[in-house]
């Protein structure tokens, strides 16, 4: 591809304005230079005429009646300068040369017709030793010796006046032009950028829109009127998308709900079938399906219904309940489970059952990944956190950002999880304005920590003495 298409409206505008401005400036400068040359030519002609008149003024008739040119020393010196830049010839008649400098110009001029009152211009090529080009005029001037034909010329390459004019122009004015161009371009770029600032802000807001935040709408005020129709169209599209999401969530919830009864029947029916190897496998599959349906329902409910997180929840109570509930399941897998409760109750604002769900999911994961006869530890701490630590293989750094995505499953061994557990945990933590973090367990394994935003005074339940005051 030869041309790169510019995608940015800002860059396109800036580039076009800059091109336009540079072209306009170039034309203006060209016109200026042309004008300068014009003026210089006019001035040159005037100067040559004046010099012709000057020369005629110094022509005198002496006592013998001879016509002679008596130039002041200053002018003589100038005309006789070695390089013969300025030359002249004064003639009384066509071939009656009164004076010439250099003398051979007199010989050349002698072949010309006499001048008239109107100056006649001439161009002299390859004149003199160096073969320079001369430009001059012949005009009739009255003098003490009557009308004289005066030819004055100047070497074309010594057009001092034009050069000095141009030099002056460049020195006095010319340097400003590039500066002006740059300044205008900068001002233009800044102006364009600031005009697009509201658009950039709207873009940032739009970037925050996702499946979890479909209620955001872009502000239509303070925007360039050209952009407003686009933004309002996007907002209307978002309305329709949000409706679609709602339908989708309701559908998921309904589907999961409806699936439960037939699944319960299949589960119950399988339990009474005499087991051979195949039946055991099918039982495992059905158990997995049960779990998936259950989790789908939970996700759909978390999406659809705002969680009531206004209760005071004792994290120790919840942790103790979950550890007790999970212990038989965990022991059946030859893994022990323990609780390290904080000495004082840790009370946070939240939803007891949701927090229990989150913790159960973490414990399920930990037990599933822990090696046999290792211990999974649930701990609570006074700063409003509860964590689950295992001695499993850990989670590689590059996988950590994925594990909270729905239906994401590790690349490791074939597990029975649907990949919804951690997504549920993170939804629950969002509803609690809390956070979840993953850390390496010193000595191997992983620690998941749930951190709750709203810690209630710890002095509520057990011994009031010695408890730290509310933090955060």
């Amino acid at each position, binding site marked *: 591809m030869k041309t790169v298409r510019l995608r940015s409206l800002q860059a396109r505008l800036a580039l076009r304005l800059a091109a336009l401005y540079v072209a306009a400036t170039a034309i203006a400068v060209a016109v200026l230079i042309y004008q300068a040359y014009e003026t210089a030519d006019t001035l040159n002609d005037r100067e040559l005429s004046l010099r012709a008149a000057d020369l005629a003024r110094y022509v005198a008739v002496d006592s013998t009646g001879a016509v002679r040119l008596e130039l002041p020393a200053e002018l003589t010196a100038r005309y006789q300068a070695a390089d013969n830049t300025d030359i002249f010839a004064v003639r009384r008649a066509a071939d009656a040369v009164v004076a010439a400098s250099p003398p051979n110009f007199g010989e050349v001029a002698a072949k010309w017709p006499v001048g008239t009152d109107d100056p006649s211009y001439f161009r002299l090529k390859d004149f003199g030793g160096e073969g320079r080009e001369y430009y001059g005029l012949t005009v009739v001037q009255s003098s003490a010796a009557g009308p004289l034909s005066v030819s004055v010329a100047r070497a074309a390459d010594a057009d001092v006046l034009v050069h000095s004019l141009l030099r002056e122009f460049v020195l006095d004015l010319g340097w400003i032009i590039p500066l002006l161009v740059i300044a205008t371009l900068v001002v233009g770029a800044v102006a364009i950028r600031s005009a697009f600032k509201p658009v950039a802000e709207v873009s940032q807001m739009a970037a925050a829109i996702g499946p979890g935040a479909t209620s955001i709408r872009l502000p239509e005020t303070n925007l360039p009127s050209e952009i407003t129709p686009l933004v309002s169209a996007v907002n209307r599209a978002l309305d329709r998308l949000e409706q679609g999401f709602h339908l989708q969530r309701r559908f998921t919830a309904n589907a999961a*709900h409806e699936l*439960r*009864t037939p*699944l*319960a*029947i299949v*589960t*119950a*029916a399988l*339990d*009474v079938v005499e087991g051979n190897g195949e039946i055991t496998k099918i039982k495992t599959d059905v*158990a997995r399906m*049960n779990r998936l*349906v*259950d989790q789908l*329902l*939970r996700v759909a*409910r978390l999406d659809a219904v705002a969680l009531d997180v206004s209760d005071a929840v004792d994290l120790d109570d919840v942790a*103790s309940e979950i*550890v*007790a*509930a999970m*212990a*038989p399941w965990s*022991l*059946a897998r030859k893994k*022990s*489970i*323990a*609780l*390290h*409760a904080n000495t004082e109750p840790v009370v946070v604002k939240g*939803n007891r*059952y949701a927090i229990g769900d989150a913790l159960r999911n973490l414990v399920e994961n930990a037990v599933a990944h822990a090696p046999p006869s290792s*211990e999974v530890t*649930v701990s609570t701490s006074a700063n409003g956190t509860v964590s689950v630590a295992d001695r499993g293989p850990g989670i590689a750094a590059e996988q950590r950002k994925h594990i909270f995505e729905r239906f994401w499953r590790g690349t490791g061994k074939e597990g029975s999880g649907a990949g919804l557990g951690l997504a549920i945990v993170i939804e629950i933590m969002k509803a609690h304005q809390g956070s979840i973090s993953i850390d390496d367990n010193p000595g191997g394994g992983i620690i998941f920590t749930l951190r709750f935003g709203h810690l209630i005074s710890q002095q509520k339940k057990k011994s009031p003495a010695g408890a730290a005051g509310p933090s955060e």
Partner: protein
Amino acid sequence: MRLLIVEDEARIAELVQGALARAGFAVDSVALCADARAALTVTSYDAAIVDLGLPDGDGLSLLAELRANGNLTPVLVLTARDAVEDRVRGLDTGADDYLVKPFAIEELIARTKALLRRPGGALGVTLKAGNISFDTIERDVSIGDASLVLPRRESAILEHLMRRLGCVVPKPVFEEKLYGLNDEHGSNTIPVHVHHLRRKLLDAGATAEIHTVRGVGYILTESST
């Protein structure tokens, strides 16, 4: 032992009935609140399994009615997951236990047995776990055919563990049941008793084992065969 199932989903009722029958229970099954009410007045059941969502009423109100009439039949409530959070307080008042659908039949049987193992329950007189058997009246403990003599507190601990076989018994429950309020021995002696009890069971070749769930309590599980 006679059980009542109140469940309107015919297939589930049939399967649960079949499984419980195989586990040695006599089972009646009804689909409506009205039928359940009638059955409970006519027959004395050892336990009832009640689904909450019934065509002609709510299982919870049936339960409340039952309790108001002084009927103390142990009740295991079956409920959908999304109802648990809203109704668990209600369950606490009337039901003895609850199970979330979908459930495994083994779990249902285990929970039902746990209800029956309660003091006064149909299985509450002679407790069994693996090859351990505990006569709660004579306070005789035997492992297989051999009898095992246990000190008072160890025997009390074993009784609680056996009544809640397969479930964690929180340490505060032992503290509450084993010691009076003013007993100065305190809770620190419980781990010692459990330690001795565990050792004795092991030495006697018991096929049930006491596990410690650190920070929470103890659990008795039957060794997998």
